[in-house]
C-alpha cells in the first residue's frame, strides 16, 4: 500500500498543530490583537453571601486611563428569563448571571469590572474599588451541608439513577464477609493552565466576534445570543486554541458574560481575563462522601453492593453526577442498589471535571473493592476477575465490547503483578516500603451528533472543517488523519479547521465523544467528496473507470484507482481539472440515527481500564512516591497511538494528583476557598511523575461508533487514584479512605 498508511487511522503521527504550539504562534483567547480594545479587570466579592450595599468608585475612576466601571448598578440590559441563560449542559436551577443584581451568592463572585485603556491601569483601579456589603449567614462546609442533602426533583439530563437489583440490604446482612465504610473526595479545581479569558471584538455594526476560552464555540454563541440580546448570526465565537479545559470550559464562564456586557456598555472591544485566584471562583469538582456496603462469600464472590453518595452543589443550581452506579454496573453481584443526593452550599455550582462521576464514584468504589479482597484473602486482581461481569450488571445490557479481562491480563504482565507478595508491608526497597495496587476504570463511550465539511481544491488541497474544539485532545490531528485515510492524501495536503462557530455544527468538546463524533463526520464528508470525484471522473478522457461503481474504487497516494489494480490510477488533481470546478465540497452529519438510538438502548457502550501502580513510601516519614504506573486501556479503535497515549498519560497524572495532592481548602467562617493559587493548590509537578506505561488492548468494536472509536479523554483518570491508594495500603498497611492521601492522614493512622 502507499503513503497513506503512514498517516491514516491507527498511525502515530505527530500533532499537526505542533509547530504552532512550539513556536508560540498558536493564539489563545486573550492573545488576539483587536484595535482600540479595553482591558477589563474583575473585582471579586470578599464575602460569601449577602448583598452589596454600596460601591465607592471615586478613587478607581480617578486613575488615568479608566474608561468605565461596570457593576450591577449600570450594566446594560440583559434577558429577563432564566431560560435565556441555559447552556448546553442545562443544569437544573437558576444559572448564574454576573452583575445581575446586588445579591452575593458565593465568595469571589464577580461584582464589578474595571475597564481601562491598559491592563495596568485597570488592574490598579480594580484594587481601589471599595465595596460595602451586608453579610448573611452562609455555609460552605460540606459536612454541615449534608444536613440539607436531597435528591432534586428535576434531574440533570445526564443523570442515571441507580437501578436496584435483588435485595441488597438482606444480602448484606446475610453475607459471610461484610464491609461498610465511608469514603471521601475533597473539592478539586480544574485549573487548566490557560486562565479563562474572553476577547470581544466590537465591530460596530451589531456584530461581535468573541475569542473565548471555551470547550464549545457554538454553545457560547447561542448563550450570548439568547442572554445578551444578539441575533445568533451576529455572534461569532472562536476558540481555535484552548489551553486546557478538563470540563471548566463546558459551560460559558462568567468572564464571557462580563466581556460581552462591557462591550455592550462601552460599544468597544473588551478583553477580560480571570486571575489564577479567580479560577477558584467558578467550576470545581464536587466534594463527595460515599458510604459503601459490600457483602461477599468467603470465596470473594460479591453477594451485595450498596452505595449511598452525596456530592456538593450550589444553592442556585443542582449539579448531579453518577457516583454509585459504576460499581453496580461493573461487578456481577446478584444484589445491588444505591442512593444519591446532592448537598447545597454557598459556592459557585460544582461542575463536570474530567470523568465527572466516574473519577469520583468508580475510584472510591475501587478502594472498597480492594478492602474486600483483603477481607476475602484473595489477590486484588483475582478478586476482580472473580466478580467480572460480561454485561452491564446494573442495566442488564450486553456491551458492544468489553476487553477488560484482556486489560487486566496484559496490564498485569507488563507490570509484573505475579511477583507481588500479598501481605501489606511485605515488600521493601531500602528504607522504603513498596506497595503494588490495582484498580479498574470505566467510562462511557459516547457519540454526539456532529457535522463536518470537506472541500477539495483544484490543486489537490483538502480542507476539513468542524466547529468542534481541540482542548489538547488532538482533534486537529484526528480530523486530519481521518481525512487522509478516507481520501488517500498526505498530511501536508490537508488543513483541519475547528474552533469557530461559523463551521459545521458540533457539540461542546467533552465526555470523550470528540474524536468518535467529529472523526465520523469528517469521514462522511470526505466520502461524499469522494463520490463527487467519482462522478467527475466519468468525464475523464478515455473513461478510465469504465463501468466501475464507486465501491470499486479507492483513494491512494492522491490518486483514485480501481481496487486491486496495480495501476496507480488517476491523480485527484487531474479529475479536478477535468471537472472544470475550482473545488468540490460536501457537508455531512454523523448521527446515530433512529436505528442507532435503538441499538444504544440495547447495548452498553463503555471504555474500561486496568491501572497498576507501584508506590514507595518512606516508613518513618510517610513520603509517598508513585514510581511506576501501567494503565491498560480497552477503548476500541485507536486513531493515533501517539496522541492517544498522551491522553491517558494526562489522565494518570491528574489521577495521581487526585490521590496525593489536590484539595481546595475551605475557610468555613469566611465561606472562602483559601489556597486559591498554584503555589498552595498542588497539582503534580514533573518531579512527582516517574514512569507511566500505557497499553491499548485490542478491542475491535464496529458497533460502538461509526469509526469504532470509543474516546480517551477521561478513562485515564478513572481508577488511578484508587490504584495509588491501594498500593499505599499494600506498602504500609494504612488504609486511607479520604482523598487526597496527604502526609498528615498517614501519620494520623500511626496513633
Amino acid at each position: 500500500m502507499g503513503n497513506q498508511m503512514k498517516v491514516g487511522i491507527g498511525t502515530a503521527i505527530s500533532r499537526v498543530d505542533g509547530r504552532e504550539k512550539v513556536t508560540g504562534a498558536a493564539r489563545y483567547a486573550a492573545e488576539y490583537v483587536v484595535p482600540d480594545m479595553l482591558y477589563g479587570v474583575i473585582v471579586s466579592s470578599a464575602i460569601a453571601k449577602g448583598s452589596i450595599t454600596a460601591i465607592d468608585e471615586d478613587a478607581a475612576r480617578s486613575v488615568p486611563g479608566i474608561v468605565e466601571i461596570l457593576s450591577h448598578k449600570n450594566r446594560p440590559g440583559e434577558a429577563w428569563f432564566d431560560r435565556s441563560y441555559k447552556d448546553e449542559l442545562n443544569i437544573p436551577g437558576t444559572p448564574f448571571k454576573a452583575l445581575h443584581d446586588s445579591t452575593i451568592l458565593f465568595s469571589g463572585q464577580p461584582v464589578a469590572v474595571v475597564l481601562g485603556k491598559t491592563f495596568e491601569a485597570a488592574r490598579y483601579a480594580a484594587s481601589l474599588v471599595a465595596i460595602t456589603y451586608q453579610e448573611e449567614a452562609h455555609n460552605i462546609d460540606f459536612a454541615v451541608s449534608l444536613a440539607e442533602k436531597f435528591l432534586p426533583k428535576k434531574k440533570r439530563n445526564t443523570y442515571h439513577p441507580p437501578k436496584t437489583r435483588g435485595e441488597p440490604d438482606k444480602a448484606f446482612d446475610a453475607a459471610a464477609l461484610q464491609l461498610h465504610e465511608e469514603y471521601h473526595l475533597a473539592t478539586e479545581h480544574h485549573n487548566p493552565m490557560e486562565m479563562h479569558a474572553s476577547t470581544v471584538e466590537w465591530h460596530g455594526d451589531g456584530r461581535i466576534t468573541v475569542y473565548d476560552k471555551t470547550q464549545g464555540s457554538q454553545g457560547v454563541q447561542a448563550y450570548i445570543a439568547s442572554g445578551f440580546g444578539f441575533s445568533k448570526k451576529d455572534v461569532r465565537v472562536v476558540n481555535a486554541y484552548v489551553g486546557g479545559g478538563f470540563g471548566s470550559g463546558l459551560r460559558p464562564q462568567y468572564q464571557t458574560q462580563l466581556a460581552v456586557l462591557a462591550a455592550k456598555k462601552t460599544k468597544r472591544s473588551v478583553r477580560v481575563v480571570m486571575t489564577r485566584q479567580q479560577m477558584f471562583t467558578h467550576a470545581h469538582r464536587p466534594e463527595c462522601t460515599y458510604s459503601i456496603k459490600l457483602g461477599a462469600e468467603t470465596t470473594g464472590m460479591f453477594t451485595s453492593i450498596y452505595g449511598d453518595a452525596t456530592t456538593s452543589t450550589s444553592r442556585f443550581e443542582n449539579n448531579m453526577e453518577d457516583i454509585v452506579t459504576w460499581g453496580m454496573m461493573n461487578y456481577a453481584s446478584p444484589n445491588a442498589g444505591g442512593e444519591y443526593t446532592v448537598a447545597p452550599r454557598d459556592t459557585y455550582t460544582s461542575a463536570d471535571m474530567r470523568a465527572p462521576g466516574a473519577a469520583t464514584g468508580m475510584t472510591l468504589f475501587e478502594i472498597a473493592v480492594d478492602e474486600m479482597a483483603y477481607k476475602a484473602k484473595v489477590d486484588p486482581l483475582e478478586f476482580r476477575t472473580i466478580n467480572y461481569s460480561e454485561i452491564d450488571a446494573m442495566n442488564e445490557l450486553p456491551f458492544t465490547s468489553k476487553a477488560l479481562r484482556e486489560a487486566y491480563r496484559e496490564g498485569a504482565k507488563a507490570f509484573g503483578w505475579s511477583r507481588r507478595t500479598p501481605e501489606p508491608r511485605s515488600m521493601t526497597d531500602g528504607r522504603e516500603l513498596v506497595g503494588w495496587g490495582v484498580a479498574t476504570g470505566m467510562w462511557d463511550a459516547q457519540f454526539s451528533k456532529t457535522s463536518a465539511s470537506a472541500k477539495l481544491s483544484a490543486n489537490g488541497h483538502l480542507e476539513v472543517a468542524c466547529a468542534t474544539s481541540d482542548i489538547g485532545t488532538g482533534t486537529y490531528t484526528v480530523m486530519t488523519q481521518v481525512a487522509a485515510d478516507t481520501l488517500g492524501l498526505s498530511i501536508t495536503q490537508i488543513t483541519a479547521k475547528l474552533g469557530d462557530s461559523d463551521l459545521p455544527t458540533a457539540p461542546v468538546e467533552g465526555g470523550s465523544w470528540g474524536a468518535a463524533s467529529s472523526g465520523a463526520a469528517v469521514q462522511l464528508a470526505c466520502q461524499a467528496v469522494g463520490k463527487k470525484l467519482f462522478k467527475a471522473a466519468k468525464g475523464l478522457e478515455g473513461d478510465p473507470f469504465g463501468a466501475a461503481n464507486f465501491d470499486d474504487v479507492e483513494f491512494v497516494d492522491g490518486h483514485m484507482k480501481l481496487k486491486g489494480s496495480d495501476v496507480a490510477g488517476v491523480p485527484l488533481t487531474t479529475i479536478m481539472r477535468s471537472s472544470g470546478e475550482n473545488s468540490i465540497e460536501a457537508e455531512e452529519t454523523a448521527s446515530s440515527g433512529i436505528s442507532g438510538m435503538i441499538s444504544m438502548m440495547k447495548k452498553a457502550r463503555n471504555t474500561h481500564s486496568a491501572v497498576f501502580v507501584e508506590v514507595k513510601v518512606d516508613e518513618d516519614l510517610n513520603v509517598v512516591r508513585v514510581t511506576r504506573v501501567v494503565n491498560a486501556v480497552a477503548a476500541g479503535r485507536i486513531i493515533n497511538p501517539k496522541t492517544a497515549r498522551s491522553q491517558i498519560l494526562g489522565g494518570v497524572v491528574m489521577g495521581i494528583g487526585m490521590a496525593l495532592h489536590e484539595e481546595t481548602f475551605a475557610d468555613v467562617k469566611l465561606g472562602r476557598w483559601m489556597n486559591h493559587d498554584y503555589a498552595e493548590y498542588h497539582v503534580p509537578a514533573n518531579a512527582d511523575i516517574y514512569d507511566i506505561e500505557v497499553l491499548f488492548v485490542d478491542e475491535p468494536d464496529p458497533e460502538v461508533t461509526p469509526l469504532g472509536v470509543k474516546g480517551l479523554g477521561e478513562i485515564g483518570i478513572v481508577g488511578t487514584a484508587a490504584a495509588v491508594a491501594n498500593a499505599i495500603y499494600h506498602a504500609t498497611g494504612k488504609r486511607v479512605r479520604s482523598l487526597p492521601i496527604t502526609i498528615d492522614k498517614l501519620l494520623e493512622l500511626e496513633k
Partner: protein
Amino acid sequence: MNRFDYARAGSLAEALRDGAGDDARYLAGGTNLIDLMKENVERPLRIVDINRLDLHGATELDDGGLRLGALMTNAETAYHPQVEQRFPLLASAILAGASPQLRNAATNGGNLNQRTRCYYFYDTATPCNKRDPGTGCGAIGGVNRIHAILGASPSCIATHPSDMCIALAALGAQVQVTGPEGDRTIAFADYHRLPGDEPWRDNTLRAGELVTGIDLPPDDFTSHYTYLKLRDRLSYAFALVSVAVAMKLEDGRIADARIALGGVAHKPWRRVEAEDTIRNQAPSTQAFETAASALLAGAIGQGENDFKVALARKAVVRALGQAAAGTPQSQIDKRVA
C-alpha cells in the same frame, strides 16, 4: 499593583536616600515583592531598584569565612564553587526551594526578607494582623495546615517560608546591613523575630536599612550535614517541615551539632539547649530523639497542623541520622536518605 515612583540606585548612598520612609521598598529580584504587589498586600509608593549596586559577588573573609553579596542570586550562590565545596548545606537548602527560574531571579538579600505564605496574609479579603494590624488572625481557627507549631502568638501563627535561611541559621551566619545610621552586623538568630504582638515585623531591620551581605563562618560542616525538606509534593512546594543539620564528629562522638527547623515557626527555629543534649554523645536514635524533644518542647498545633509536631520530631531524628552517617539528603533523588 499600585502606582509608584521608580528610582534606580547607582550607589548605596543613593539607595539609602531613596529608600528612606515607610512607603519605600527596595527591589532586587522581585520574586516576592512583585508577587505581593500584584496581590495588593504590598503597596509601596516608591520602588528603589538596587540591582545595579555592587553586591553581586562572593568574597573571602579574613577569618576564612565567605561573604555572599546580597544581590547574588540564589542560583549563583548554590552553584558557586566555594559554596558547593565548603558550604554544601547551604547549596542543598537553596536547591530544595522554589524553582530554577525563581532561584535565577531571587537574591540572597531578598530571600532573607521574603514574607510568609500564610493564605490569609496573601488574601486582602481576609483578616490578617501581619498585613493589616488589628484585623485579627484568620488562620487561628481557620485553615492552618501550613502554620506554626512553635513560637506563635495569639496575633499571628504564620511561618517563615525560606529554605535558605534554615541552613543559614544552622551555619550561624551573620547578616551585614547598612542604613541611615551606618553599617551593622546582625547574628542570624537575631535577624528574624517571633510575631509577638507586632506580627507585621518579620525581622529586626530598622527603617531604611538594607541587607548588603551574608557572612558564612569558616566552620567545616562538609562531611556531616543535611537539608531534609518535607512537603505536599516532591518539588516546587513550600516546606511543611524542613530540617537543616550541620554536625562535626570527632572520634565517633558529636563535637558540634546545629539543628534548625523550617516551616514550624515565624523564624528559623533553633535551640542551643537542644543541640547541647547531643554534644559529646555518640550518634544514636535515642540521642537524636532527646534532641528532637528538646528542640520541639512546647510545640503545639492549631488543629489542622497538629501533625507537624510528630512530623517534625521524625524529621529531626532522620536528619540527624543522615548528617551523622554522612549521607545528606539529595535534592534530586526524592528518596529520603
